[in-house]
């Protein structure tokens, strides 16, 4: 299960800050971002080519970081999640550079706390979402967002082997996406304003010129529908 890892990947002496302008939200998908990480050092390129045919789940990759400080596992997770974290953070209003900084910090947190990640309790995307959300709040509001040990409830937990397969992971995201798409546009809108803009009920109410009570009931109905979908999957 453990791939042999290069022990000493050397960072380039000078990090180029030249083409900041080239950074932008892109519709080209993950491959473009993957190129950006791949093209850097030959060691990193090797990591990617060595891993070409492996299809470890994201959770397995975290395990390899926890057990062996496996850089190739980290590189693979980075390639997948860092561009998405950056996109989410830019959506919250951070500029390109700051969004990338916080995306990086989030991924470094994953490296640091890999041993604490328990795939039986949470999906990696959920875990990363929490970290990025909290980092964003720390950064923009200079405040700490009190944490709930939400995985502590232990009820209806999915067995690890069921969540492990990348296909299931993808399927899960697909189904939540499908469930979102299945919501009435008005309900989907309040969920997206909540998560992608971090808007409070009163901010949404002002944004959409709706009574506060309507905003709240829409969120409740939308969440109930999404929750049903999540529960059906588990």
């Amino acid at each position, binding site marked *: 299960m453990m791939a042999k890892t290069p022990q000493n990947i050397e960072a380039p002496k000078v*990090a180029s800050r030249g083409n900041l302008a*080239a950074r932008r939200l892109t519709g080209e998908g993950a491959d473009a*971002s993957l190129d950006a990480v791949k093209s850097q050092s030959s060691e990193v390129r090797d990591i990617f080519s060595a891993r070409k045919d492996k299809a470890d789940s994201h959770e397995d990759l975290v395990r390899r970081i926890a057990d062996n400080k496996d850089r190739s596992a980290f590189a693979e997770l980075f390639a997948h999640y860092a561009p*998405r974290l950056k996109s989410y953070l830019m959506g919250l209003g951070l500029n390109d550079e700051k969004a990338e900084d916080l995306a990086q910090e989030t991924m470094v947190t994953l490296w640091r706390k890999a041993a604490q990640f328990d795939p039986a309790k949470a999906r990696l995307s959920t875990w990363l979402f929490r970290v990025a959300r909290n980092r964003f709040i720390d950064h923009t509001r200079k405040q700490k967002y009190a944490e709930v040990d939400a*995985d502590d*409830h232990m009820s209806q937990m999915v067995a690890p082997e069921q969540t492990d397969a990348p296909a299931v992971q993808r399927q899960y995201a697909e189904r939540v996406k499908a469930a979102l798409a299945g919501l009435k546009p008005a309900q989907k809108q309040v969920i997206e304003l909540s998560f992608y803009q971090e808007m409070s009920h009163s901010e949404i109410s002002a944004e959409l010129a709706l009574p506060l009570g309507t905003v709240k009931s829409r969120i409740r109905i939308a969440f109930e529908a999404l929750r049903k979908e999540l529960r059906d999957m588990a």
Partner: protein
Amino acid sequence: MTKTGLLPDEWLVSYASGALTEAQALVVACHAEYHDELKERIADAEAVGGALLEGVVPARLSVGALDNAFKAIEALDEEAPSEDRVPAFTAPRMPTPLASLLGKGFDELKWGFMGPGMKKLMLKTYENGERLWLLRAKGGTEMPFHDHRGLEFTLVLTGGYKVGDTHYTPGMMEVAGPEDTHHQPIIDEGEDCICLAVTDAPIKLHSFVGRMFQPFIGL
């Protein structure tokens, strides 16, 4: 509004999405500690966040982003991840986020006078005008009638109180808004009722007696 004393889903979604203020998030995190059902719902809402994260159009990273991450990792310097140990207060139970904030038990705090049978302690003021309070009332106290100009979250930590037909006991949360007029909590007989509260605007007291208390309460 919250007849069962459990925070309604729309607030759990706001917690999960990061849309709560810090003071609200603190009280919600304390509240959730009492109820597995709430933790589960918050975990579900955060899973929605995770799925939305999976679904965004990936942004382009700068050249060398991964190498920079490895540099940051090397700079970590093998320092052990710091485990924030929270002082344990067994009796009465104190939720973890509050225990971290206070660092001591309820009886070691410097309570201020708020009115007959009532004490208060302002823990924090926030830039947005919110205030975080501990309120303490002797068993049997009838609080003065008051309206709410803003939103108020109140989490019961010890004892209990009634508002109308609703009975709030430890772990239960009351959410009151400007629409809740003539709000008069009546404290249960027996032990002191201690509550953690967030206010976002001063409350307005009715009646001569109430107005007389206003300077004391000062919420």
